């Protein structure tokens, strides 16, 4: 169990470290304060995982360092049962000249194992790392993935009661990541507490029982991961939205027929698909960087209790430039009864590089996990196309879309 109450940490920024001693000796102030954390409190019970989210510089790392005891807070109490191990200290003390086995002893001792304990566990550590005979080679001969495997393997075998997991886990190949994840789940099932810091919102939502959000050192939100993540994403969106170019109209022309391919169970039918500009005029081509509205209508031939709708935009090479669905967007569309028609409207900005783009539509029922569904009802490719023209008011660029950079040039 981890319980912290009212943790605050200020870093004093000094011109030079010597100023700190001068301060103590002469009782005058030589520093600027930087508040890294202010009044943070939370609790992680045994077997629970707490997610910490926040933008870069919010104070997440400082919080982890306080939990692992490297940084001492100015105020507040920390109560931790048992041993804390952090994945942020993966591979600490590794010496590349020495063999994997020798490094197990050093790193293992550093993270709090005794010599006997390591003697007992080294077989398990080597097994889990899948290094085999490489364990007797110097670490400098290892690939970076092998080093990570060894480091993680030592950390997980140190029998911590609390685990501090940082972004570090994203290192290594997909297979080993899965293996690590399983091991962490086992650890949690056995009653270990985990503090998980990540920028991967999906991971936070799927792994964590609770989440906190930190911004500028303050705890802004504490609650269900889904709510906290939503709040976080809203905040990020709000910050991003400032400076968006207001939209304008363009030439309008109605289309002819479009070939398409589709897979369907026949339980739903796409009865209408139309593209509009922001003046509600149907369009076939448009200037880039203008908003468009896509409307499609779906007729259900059976009851759908949890329908979800997806849209994919592909370029002329068939490469998806953007795709999403209502489930992934955390929307909960209404149920449709048999024979009813649902109308789905998508409004979005369209800052794509000039060219021809096609729209594909997907319809499914009952979502779970990250964008998976129990029933895939219809996937209809290239139901319509739009031709994007160069926006004369825009910058010249090439690539996929206009990222609208802000550039400042200075003469130093």
């Amino acid at each position, binding site marked *: 169990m981890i319980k912290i109450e009212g943790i605050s940490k200020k*870093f*004093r920024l000094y011109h030079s*470290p*010597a100023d*700190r*001693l001068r301060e*103590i000796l002469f009782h005058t102030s030589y520093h600027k304060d930087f508040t890294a954390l202010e009044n943070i409190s939370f609790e992680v019970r045994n077997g629970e995982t707490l997610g910490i989210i926040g933008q870069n510089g919010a104070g997440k790392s400082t919080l982890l360092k306080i939990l*692992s*005891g*490297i*940084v*001492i807070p*100015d105020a507040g109490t920390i109560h931790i049962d048992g041993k804390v191990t952090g994945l*942020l*200290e993966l591979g*600490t*003390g590794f*010496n590349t*000249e*020495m063999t994997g086995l*020798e490094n197990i*002893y*050093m790193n293992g*001792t*550093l*993270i*709090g*194992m*005794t*010599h006997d304990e390591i003697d007992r566990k080294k077989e398990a550590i080597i097994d889990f790392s899948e290094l085999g005979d490489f364990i007797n080679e110097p670490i400098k001969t290892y690939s970076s993935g092998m080093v990570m495997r060894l480091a993680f393997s030592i950390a997980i075998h140190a029998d911590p009661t609390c685990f501090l997991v940082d972004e570090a886990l994203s290192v290594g190949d997909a297979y080993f990541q899965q293996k690590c994840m399983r091991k962490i789940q086992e650890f949690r099932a056995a009653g270990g507490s985990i503090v998980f810091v990540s920028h991967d919102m999906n991971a936070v939502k799927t792994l964590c029982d609770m989440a906190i959000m930190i911004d500028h050192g303050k705890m802004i939100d504490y609650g269900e991961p889904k709510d906290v993540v939503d709040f976080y994403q809203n905040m990020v969106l709000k910050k991003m939205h400032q400076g968006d170019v207001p939209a304008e109209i363009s030439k309008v022309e109605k289309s002819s027929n479009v070939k398409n391919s589709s897979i369907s169970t026949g339980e739903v039918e796409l009865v209408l698909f139309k593209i509009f500009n922001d003046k509600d005029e149907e369009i076939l081509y448009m200037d880039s960087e203008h908003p468009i509205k896509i409307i499609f209508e779906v007729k259900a031939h059976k009851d759908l209790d949890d329908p979800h709708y997806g849209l994919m935009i592909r370029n002329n090479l068939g490469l998806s430039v953007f795709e999403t669905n209502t489930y992934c967007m955390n929307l909960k569309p209404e149920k449709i009864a048999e024979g009813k028609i649902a109308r789905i409207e998508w409004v979005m900005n369209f800052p794509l590089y000039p060219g021809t783009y096609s729209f594909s539509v997907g319809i499914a029922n009952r979502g779970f996990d990250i964008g998976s569904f129990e029933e895939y009802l219809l996937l209809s490719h290239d139901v319509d196309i739009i031709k994007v023209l160069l926006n004369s008011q825009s910058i010249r660029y090439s690539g996929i879309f206009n990222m609208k950079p802000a550039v400042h040039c200075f003469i130093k």
Partner: protein
Amino acid sequence: MNFSLIIELTKRDFIERYSGSALGFVWSFIYPLINILIYMIVFGTLMGARLPGTDTVWGYGVYLIAGLIPWTAFANTVTRSSTVFLDKKHIISKIRVDLATLPIFIVLSETITFCVTFMIFLGILSLTGYLFTPLLLLIPLVYIVQQVFAYALGFFLGMLVVFFRDLKEVVSILFQVWFWFTPIVYVYQILPQLAQDMLIWNPMLSVVSAYHDIFVYQKIPSFFFLTHVLVAGIVLIILDCLIYKKLEKDIRDFI
């Protein structure tokens, strides 16, 4: 206190020093062996330096080495401790370690070097027909006094060096000067009276003199001054603890 960690760090200290070399740990025997041989041969047989009050050709060589080995252990312990927090930054900034234990592994590591060197020295002495006395059993006692003081001073300087990085250069210069203000290559009695009076304040004088008494003059060293050094060491350790309590947070922030 984490003993496993101290032992592992000490082991590491030796392995790292000679890692990749074919002879490995054997090198830590070769260096002192060559050094001692050179001193004995150059000063004893080639220069024929005679030490007042002794009658063998080896007298001066023994005098020099008996002072030099402990001095090296002392100086290395203090200078290495003074930068230990910076040297082990990669560990301190990632894992919770008690900072007070870090200088201990240096004391331990230097003690091993000291023992190895002394064994070699005793081996060479036996070849010269040196008369061993039970006085040699006092060496560990003198050594403990010396290293308590070394730990206290090293820990103190180590904490200061975090704030004043320049101090580590000052420390190495200081030890150059200190070396010559300690009667290791010369004999205390040849100094003018004024210098003799000043040197009383040098704690290493009584330590080195104790080794000289044991090895060269073969008499029981003066425990009066050694006790002073021990007390000074203990007082300094208490002071270190107070400073550490006050500054630990800052030290960790600055590292």
